[in-house]
C-alpha cells in the first residue's frame, strides 16, 4: 500500500514542475531497526517515481560504513537530499506529515541550488567563517 493518495501525487507532481537539475536521494535504513526504516525507503521511492530527475540509493549504515561516515549519518532512518552537490540537508526519521512538505521543498530547492531567502540573508550567510549545524525537531502532526 502506498503512502501517497492520488491527490498527494498530483500536488507533488505540480511542485516538481519546478525541478531544475537532477536530485539524488540517499536513504540510510537498517532492516533491524524500527518499521519506520522500511517505511522511509518506501515513501522516498514513491516520491522519486514522480519525477525522472530523481534517483534513490538505499544504504545500510552498518554495512555501507564509509558512505555513512562520508555523509556523517549515524542514525536510521535518514535521508540525504543532494543536488549538484551535498548542501548538508538531512532528514532523520520518517519524513511524513509536516516533514513531508519540507522534503518536497528541499528537493525542488537543491535541484536549482537557489536558496529561497532574501538577498541580505544570503550575503550574511556567504560571509560565515564557522560551521553551523541547525537541528530542527518536529513531529509528524
Amino acid at each position, binding site marked *: 500500500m502506498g503512502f501517497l493518495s492520488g491527490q498527494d501525487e498530483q500536488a507533488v507532481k505540480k511542485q516538481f514542475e519546478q525541478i531544475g537539475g537532477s536530485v539524488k536521494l540517499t536513504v540510510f535504513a537498517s532492516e533491524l531497526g524500527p518499521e519506520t526504516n522500511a517505511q522511509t525507503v518506501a515513501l522516498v521511492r514513491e516520491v522519486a517515481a514522480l519525477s525522472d530527475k530523481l534517483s534513490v540509493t538505499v544504504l545500510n549504515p552498518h554495512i555501507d560504513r564509509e558512505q555513512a561516515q562520508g555523509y556523517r549519518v549515524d*542514525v536510521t532512518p535518514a535521508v540525504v537530499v543532494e543536488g549538484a552537490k551535498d548542501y548538508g*540537508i538531512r532528514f532523520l526519521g520518517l519524513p511524513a506529515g509536516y516533514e513531508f512538505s*519540507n522534503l518536497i521543498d528541499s528537493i525542488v530547492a537543491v535541484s536549482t541550488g537557489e536558496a529561497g531567502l532574501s538577498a541580505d540573508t544570503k550575503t550574511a550567510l556567504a*560571509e*560565515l*567563517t564557522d560551521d*553551523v549545524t*541547525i537541528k530542527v525537531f*518536529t513531529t*509528524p502532526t
Partner: protein
Amino acid sequence: MRLAQHMAIASDRVTAECIEATEFPELSRRYQVMAVPKIVINDTLQFEGAIPEQDFLGAVLQAVGGRS
C-alpha cells in the same frame, strides 16, 4: 525546517537536520524538546516555534559568536 534547509543551500558552512522527535527520544531528551518545532543551532543556541527569516539569521550569527 524550510528556512534551515534554504540556509544550507545558501552556505556550504550550514548543515540542516530535520529530526522526527518521537522517533529519536534520546536526542529529544538530550536537547530537552518540549514543543515543536524546536531549533538548536550548534548545540548552544535554541528556541521554539517558527520565527521570521531575519530573526532566524540573527540566531545563526549569534551562535557563531556574533561574527560576520
